[in-house]
């Protein structure tokens, strides 16, 4: 039975987002001006855009479900997530910006091939990116299907088809044009919605004291840092991996690296750090606490991933619940469209145009890019309909595999002159391969080591060993790294192009347009 008092605000909110997008596009006069200059987006918009892209369906569905199942233990992930953006900015940001400026690279994969000059780096890097970015998007499709299921009352499969269609069509017809503007609104709505729900929940259970006391009366091990039933007792390797996953993992995530790098130096970056931790104070822990509250308020919840939608429908006025669920859908869309277009850009730019023996026109490359978007959509529906994995498992797996592949090459590229392409290739294959095997074979329970921690260790070992037993990189590369490290100037020139564009998709289009205008002239 469709509840129109929830569906109506849900649809109205999505229409407002669309309207903002259209108005923003008209206001910005032309696409080229929008992408290549005159963006003038301040620290607030920049930081909130980063946040809403990072905070996907995982925060609304995955995080509370983990807390519902594991208790306080799940908050180890929140601890890392709180500082992830900050660590990325502080450790990698400036160095990677300067190095990519020196090389003139515009995308993370392009940077890797410039820093580690060998075709295999780009081929393997692109392949790993496309596969795991797709898995990341599948999780968003599942989240969208579940959100629509809870709003419309339709069966999951219809919700999934509808949600995936909305995301793919939104992406296909250029929803990215207004990403920066709609993401800002979405970040605010997400944070407001989640805190309004938390306030309603705390009033219902008698504050934090009532909440934790009620949980303890059900099962005190829910409040243990070792997990419900002490299932992770003494497993330091799992806890360290859980904290590191989101605290250092962002340094290996292509779309996060690009977004962090794309901030204007340096006042924007400084303000963005402040806004980042301020926003995280009001957003990162809250979904997990709502998952804990569901233990008390919704003890017979069949699907723990529905904790937030069910709490919203139970405790909030229907119109407010509708807006919160629309924010969930919008969060999913803002993440999914960026990743879909990033995957498409990687296919067109980093694979087809890079490796084709024939000259591939930009129009044809974009055709490939859009075909991949549709292909991922269709495959995502099949996977999500046939045997949907949980959003949290899929996000942790895909995020972990991407981070294990690229974190070490990215960081070593900036800080270790001796790092060469053989080491980077070993780090990428070893890191992501270990993460996959560890997860697939369930080695975490046997070894008490988190797949991410295992992947990062193997990736680091691979980088060090293979770099040292093979020839050092060319002097050109070593000089570039040393020059970039000594450079104190704010990035200009080539990086200006990529810093002006907030999103990876925008960078790809900017390049396309500048090449096109060169060709036209």
């Amino acid at each position, binding site marked *: 039975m469709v509840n129109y008092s929830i569906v109506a605000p849900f649809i109205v909110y999505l229409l407002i987002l669309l309207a903002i997008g259209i108005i923003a596009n008209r206001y910005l006069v032309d696409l080229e001006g929008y992408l290549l200059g005159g963006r003038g987006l301040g620290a607030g918009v920049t930081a909130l855009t980063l946040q809403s892209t990072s905070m996907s369906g995982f925060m609304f569905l995955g995080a509370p479900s983990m807390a519902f199942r594991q208790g306080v233990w799940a908050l180890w992930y929140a601890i890392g997530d709180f500082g992830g953006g*900050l660590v990325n900015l502080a450790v990698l940001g400036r160095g990677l910006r300067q190095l990519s400026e020196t090389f003139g690279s515009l995308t993370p994969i392009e940077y890797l091939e410039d820093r580690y000059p060998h075709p295999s780096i780009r081929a393997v890097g692109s392949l790993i990116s496309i596969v795991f970015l797709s898995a990341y998007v599948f999780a968003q499709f599942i989240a969208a299907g579940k959100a629509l299921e809870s709003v419309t009352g339709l069966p999951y499969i219809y919700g999934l088809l509808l949600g995936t269609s909305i995301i793919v069509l939104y992406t296909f017809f250029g929803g990215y044009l207004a990403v920066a503007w709609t993401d800002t609104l979405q970040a605010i709505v997400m944070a407001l919605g989640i805190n309004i729900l938390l306030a309603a929940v705390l009033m219902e259970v008698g504050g*934090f*004291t009532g909440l934790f006391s009620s949980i303890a009366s059900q099962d005190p091990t829910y409040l243990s840092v070792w997990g419900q039933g002490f299932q992770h007792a003494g497993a330091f390797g799992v806890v360290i991996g859980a904290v590191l996953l989101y605290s250092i993992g962002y340094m290996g995530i292509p779309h996060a690296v690009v977004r962090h790098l794309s901030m204007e130096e*340096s006042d924007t970056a400084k303000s963005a750090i402040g806004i980042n931790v301020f926003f995280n104070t009001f957003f990162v822990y809250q979904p997990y606490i709502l998952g804990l509250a569901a233990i008390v308020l919704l003890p017979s919840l069949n699907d723990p991933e529905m904790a937030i939608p069910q709490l919203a429908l139970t405790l909030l006025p229907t119109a407010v619940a509708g807006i919160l669920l629309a924010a969930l859908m919008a969060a999913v869309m803002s993440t999914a469209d960026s990743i879909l277009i990033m995957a498409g850009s990687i296919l067109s730019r980093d694979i087809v145009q890079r490796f084709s023996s024939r000259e591939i026109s930009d129009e044809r490359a974009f055709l490939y890019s859009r075909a991949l978007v549709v292909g991922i959509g269709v495959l995502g529906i099949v996977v999500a309909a046939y045997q949907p994995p949980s959003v949290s498992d899929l996000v942790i797996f895909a995020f972990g595999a991407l981070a294990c592949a690229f974190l070490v090459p990215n960081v070593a590229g900036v800080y270790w002159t001796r790092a060469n392409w053989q080491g980077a290739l070993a780090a990428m294959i070893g890191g992501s391969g270990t993460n996959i095997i560890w997860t697939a074979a369930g080695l975490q329970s046997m070894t008490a080591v988190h797949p991410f921690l295992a992947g990062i260790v193997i990736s680091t070992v691979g980088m060090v060993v293979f770099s040292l037993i093979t020839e050092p990189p060319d002097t050109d590369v070593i000089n570039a790294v040393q020059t970039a490290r000594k450079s104190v100037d704010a990035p200009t020139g080539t990086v200006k192009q990529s810093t002006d564009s907030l999103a990876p998709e925008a960078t790809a289009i900017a390049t396309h347009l500048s090449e096109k205008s060169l060709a036209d002239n």
Partner: protein
Amino acid sequence: MGVFGMPTGTFVLIFGWIPFWWFVAAVSVYRMRQNDKKNSQGDEVTNG
């Protein structure tokens, strides 16, 4: 003994990270400011 009904050790271990990350953010911004100050002095010298 506990905080909000949660064992004190657990509370500190989980929620103590919030002030920690604020501290890291403050240090990062401070260092960036110092860097910028140093760079701008360098520029002045360079630009004569």
